[in-house]
């Protein structure tokens, strides 16, 4: 791979992390003094990081082997374990760094407007900066340990931001749920790192990927599956998907940045980064495929039933990340397609969330689509940008989603076996469902009769909010074509994933495009038939089919978690508390009480009658004398 020590600007790439981190520190420690300019500082650090990331990437493009290593300091060194805090700036991390700082900058700008009336705006920007720093550490770190540090760091930032409005019990609970479910995944990641150290003696990417081939197949599969568990937790994939929709309790810019564009794609990054490991274990790769395909459908089905605009988008995110997992599970053929979809998704989903935030801003923070309707007239800019994001997401021809999603479906079909057809079919079906639920969302929000609460006067958001939306909409339109055709991502990522294979094209690309487009149009049509034609009731109908009811409950994921883990856990806790107080401590206290009781019982032998004592003495003396006689005689 030819990693070289970094020079020039690349040697300063640690500033990428340090800048937002410093911003967070100043805002958190500075207290109220920084209230007036805190948001500007927060935004400035991220914009500066973006500029630096662009400069670094430009320099990287001209470097031999396109991979630079930045050694910082010894983090942990004990025994054989030697973890260096260091960064790896290569095409893969560069792509992510650009996405994080780029979309991050836009969302920071947007938040200036969105949070303008919140008294705790400074704290919000501090947490956002903290998130950007942790996320950059996640993607730039040069070892699995550094990734783990960033991995839990973004978990913390996500926790803080979901619970930003912590006086709402729902927000506090959602934040805790997100953190705990992530931790379940983190345990998998941690154990994978333990295995790497135990078997290979190192945790750095270079070391692990260089020597992983010497391991037994079962061990590699175990590592692959454990990494996947971590990825599932962070990316909201089946079976750990339930936290992501709840995370929408956070402010909308958070949903856009963390729970759509960047953090939740960390799982995809992990699997792409660990490509040398997955290349050696078809079993783990097959599980990745299964998880991706299943989640894709689960997310899409649940997305069809919700009336909460942010929850629909959240399930859409779950589903789209399912696509990405599917892609990276396909192996070399799919890595680039998955990452291209990830980038395009970063644009249009962030744009959609910001649009949703703009709608909520206009509708007094309501998220109930049944109380929207007819908003296109009142919110023209939001409507236009949201509409472009919508078209990009459903894969309207020649917008970004069209290119990237087709690439994934083609890669699946190129497996040229039964499973290829199954996966391709699932992906196409998912495209239809996506078109359905997104069209439903569009129709309920922007079209039809206005069903607003009384006294609402929707108004367009200020420029500071609409400008980022416009930029993201432009990105949604062009990024797909740009990444697939104009500046191929496959070429840029070649140092990481190797020479792109010549696609087999089992099915002609044009035919795939046509089929997907037709299915997509069917989805749109279905949505119009179900939603657009009729008046939308203000309250959700109660008498619905079992399928709808299941979808409304997100296929009972929460119910399963509750009955399998939460209830038994609570029961076990109560039982153990009882056992500890009565059993263990009871035994100790019982012993103490027994000693005390027997001592007072023995004390009763002290009658106070002198003659009783004298008799005791006599008896004792006789016994001693008898014993002496017995010993001397016998």
């Amino acid at each position, binding site marked *: 791979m030819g990693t070289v020590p970094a020079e020039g600007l690349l040697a300063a790439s640690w500033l990428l992390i340090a800048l937002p981190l410093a911003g967070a520190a100043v805002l958190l420690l500075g207290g109220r003094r920084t209230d007036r300019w805190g948001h500007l500082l927060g935004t400035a650090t991220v914009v500066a990081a973006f500029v630096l990331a662009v400069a670094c990437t430009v320099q990287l493009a001209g470097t031999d082997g396109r991979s630079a290593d930045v050694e910082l300091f010894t983090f942990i060194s004990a025994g054989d374990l030697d973890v260096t805090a260091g960064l790896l700036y290569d095409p893969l991390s560069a792509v992510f760094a650009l996405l994080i700082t780029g979309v991050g900058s836009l969302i920071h700008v947007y938040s200036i407007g969105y949070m303008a009336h919140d008294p*705790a705006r400074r704290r919000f920007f501090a947490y956002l900066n903290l998130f950007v720093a942790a996320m950059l550490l996640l993607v730039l770190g040069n070892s699995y340990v550094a990734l783990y540090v960033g*991995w839990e760091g973004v978990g913390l930032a996500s926790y803080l931001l979901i619970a930003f409005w912590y006086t709402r019990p729902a927000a506090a609970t959602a934040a805790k749920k997100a953190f*705990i479910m992530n931790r379940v995944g983190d345990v998998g990641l941690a154990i994978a790192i333990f295995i790497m150290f135990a078997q290979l003696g190192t945790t750095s990417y270079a070391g692990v990927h260089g020597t992983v081939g010497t391991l037994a197949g079962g061990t590699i599969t175990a590592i692959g599956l454990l990494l996947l568990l971590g990825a599932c937790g962070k990316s909201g994939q089946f079976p750990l998907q339930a936290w992501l929709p709840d995370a929408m309790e956070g402010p909308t810019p958070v949903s856009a940045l963390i729970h759509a564009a960047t953090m939740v794609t960390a799982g995809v990054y992990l699997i792409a980064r660990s490509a040398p490991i997955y290349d050696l274990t078809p079993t783990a790769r097959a599980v990745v495929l299964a998880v991706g395909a299943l989640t894709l459908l689960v997310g899409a089905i649940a997305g069809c039933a919700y009336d909460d605009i942010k929850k629909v988008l959240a399930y859409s995110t779950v589903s789209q990340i399912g696509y990405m997992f599917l892609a990276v599970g396909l192996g070399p053929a799919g890595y680039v397609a998955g990452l291209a979809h990830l980038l395009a998704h970063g644009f249009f989903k962030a744009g959609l969330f910001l649009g949703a935030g703009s709608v909520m801003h206009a509708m007094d923070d309501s998220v109930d689509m049944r109380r929207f309707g007819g908003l296109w007239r009142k919110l023209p800019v939001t409507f236009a940008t949201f509409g472009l994001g919508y078209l990009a997401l459903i894969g309207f021809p020649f917008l970004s989603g069209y290119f990237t999603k087709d690439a994934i479906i083609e890669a699946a079909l190129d497996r040229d076996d039964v499973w290829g057809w199954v996966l391709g079919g699932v992906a196409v079906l998912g495209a239809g469902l996506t078109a359905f639920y997104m069209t439903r969302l569009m129709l309920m929000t922007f079209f039809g009769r206005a069903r607003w609460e009384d006294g609402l006067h929707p108004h367009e958001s200020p420029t500071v909010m609409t400008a980022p939306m416009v930029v993201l909409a432009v990105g949604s339109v062009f990024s797909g074509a740009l990444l697939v055709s104009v500046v191929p991502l496959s070429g840029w990522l070649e140092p990481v994933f190797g020479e792109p294979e010549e696609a087999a094209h089992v099915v002609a690309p044009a035919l795939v495009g046509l089929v997907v487009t037709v299915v997509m149009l069917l989805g749109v049509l279905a949505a119009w038939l179900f939603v657009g034609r009729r008046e939308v009731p203000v309250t959700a109908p109660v008498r619905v089919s079992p399928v709808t009811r299941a979808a409304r409950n997100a296929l009972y994921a929460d119910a399963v978690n509750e009955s399998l883990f939460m209830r038994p856990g609570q029961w076990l806790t109560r039982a153990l508390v009882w056992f500890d107080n009565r059993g263990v401590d009871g035994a100790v206290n019982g012993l103490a009480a027994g000693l005390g009781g027997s001592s007072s019982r023995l004390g009763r032998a002290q009658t106070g009658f002198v003659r009783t004592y004298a008799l005791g003495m006599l008896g004792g003396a006789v016994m001693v004398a008898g014993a002496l006689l017995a010993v001397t005689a016998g």
Partner: protein
Amino acid sequence: MSDFPWLLLMIALPAVGAAVVAALPRGRSLLAKQVALGVSLAVLLLAVLATLAFDPDGDRFQLTTSVSWIPDFGADFALGVDGIALVMLLLIGVLVPLVVGASWHEADTGPRPPRVFFAWLLLLEAMMVGVFAAVDVLLFYVFFEAMLVPMYFLIGSFGGPRRQYAAVKFFLYSLVGGLIMLAAVIGLYVVSTSQLGEGTFAFDALRQLDIDPDVQKLLFLGFFVAFAIKAPLVPFHTWLPDSGAEAPIGGAVLLVGVLDKVGTFGFLRYCLPLFPDASRFFAPFVLVLAVAGILYAALLAMGQSDMKRLVSYTSISHFGFIALGIFAFTTEAGTGAVLYMVNHGIATGLLFLVVGMLIARGGSREIGDYGGVARHAPKLAGAFLVAGLASLALPGTNSFVSEFLVLIGSFPERPVFTVVATAGIILAALYILLMYQRTMHGPPRGVLLADAGPEAPQEAQQAHGATATLTAPTRTLRVTDLSRRELAVVAPLVALIIGLGVYPQPLLDLIEPAVSATLSDVGTDTGGTDR
């Protein structure tokens, strides 16, 4: 400089300070506090200077001082530290001044004058320094038992409502362990008499003994039970929640922060090097206790409604990690375990202090009496969160480094135990975040409504709804944010948590040689991995 009696001074200074504070006239409470603070800061300075005088790559025991004590028994007043003991002395040096600061007003209202509190505190510091610095087994035993006395009075005189019960329980538990250990100490002396011709208590001489394996097992158990009670390992743990809950907050910090570390320190210093065969024999049993304790105590912590009991149970869970690291017999895990001892003192110390500050405001230890505190006391909530995150070993905090080292170091030798222990980190997240959410998040509850009129529940209902407007409170609340004194107590610990989380290497450099030396005494593979 190395001949300077650092350690003797570190014991003598607080002991003399305690006498001075106790002898002050009744009305001079403020002077007593100032003297206590000054003495404890001086000990911190001594500890730092001693660390600078210490050479990590030099002899195993340094800064030694030896005075003939009871020549007939071959017992000397011998002091000396290796890297393990040194970092514990640093921890003591850091924690005691903060405890003095945190307890500034706590003893004012008690039945006994504050100077008594601070005198016991300083005496406790002297005893704690002695127990870590002793390199003579009899001297260690004397300090080990003497340590109980000041702590007994701290709990029994200045504690909560059930302080008598807790103090007696603490004392009896420790005494039982101590007496069993005394038998083992005497047994060790007898063995040394038969092997060396002349009995001795000197650690370095005892380490050279070649003890019969069966005798080793008995002596090991004698020491082990004492340390397992002190540490505490499940099932010898039930005294800690009572003591931790009833002790005054400063006492609780030193109890779980330092005093209990004597147990795990004893495993490393006495059980392993003196009885290597027995240690290897018993290791699987100890690991079962350790790992079971991690999960058991974590589940119990979740079921507690009393914050101080909850924190005590989290400590029991953490001690399981430390024991796992020690008995995994790898350099990485052992180093991690020692670092864990320091980090746990800092993290749980802060958690106890912050919980204590919250209790001082609300007057209740029940979680259910709090809610939505973060809105009124953001600094308090921030410190609480940092302490909690350190307790659940989030990367970036000090505890992560130690927990990671323990787990990654144990995995090559004991994969099954390690995997089960790793599940404990999920539970850690649960118990910390549950407590944080219930006390800090949500609408105001409990004591925050106590001053309000009958309309208070309605307001809580409104906050329950969707609007998130943070309107200014319309009534006076008892929960105020941290004062300057409290900030000065909290800030150094927060700085240490983050500083040691990012750059732990200086401490690791001190600890690692001592741990390798210990493990080479045990004769196990010190390489960690079996490549």
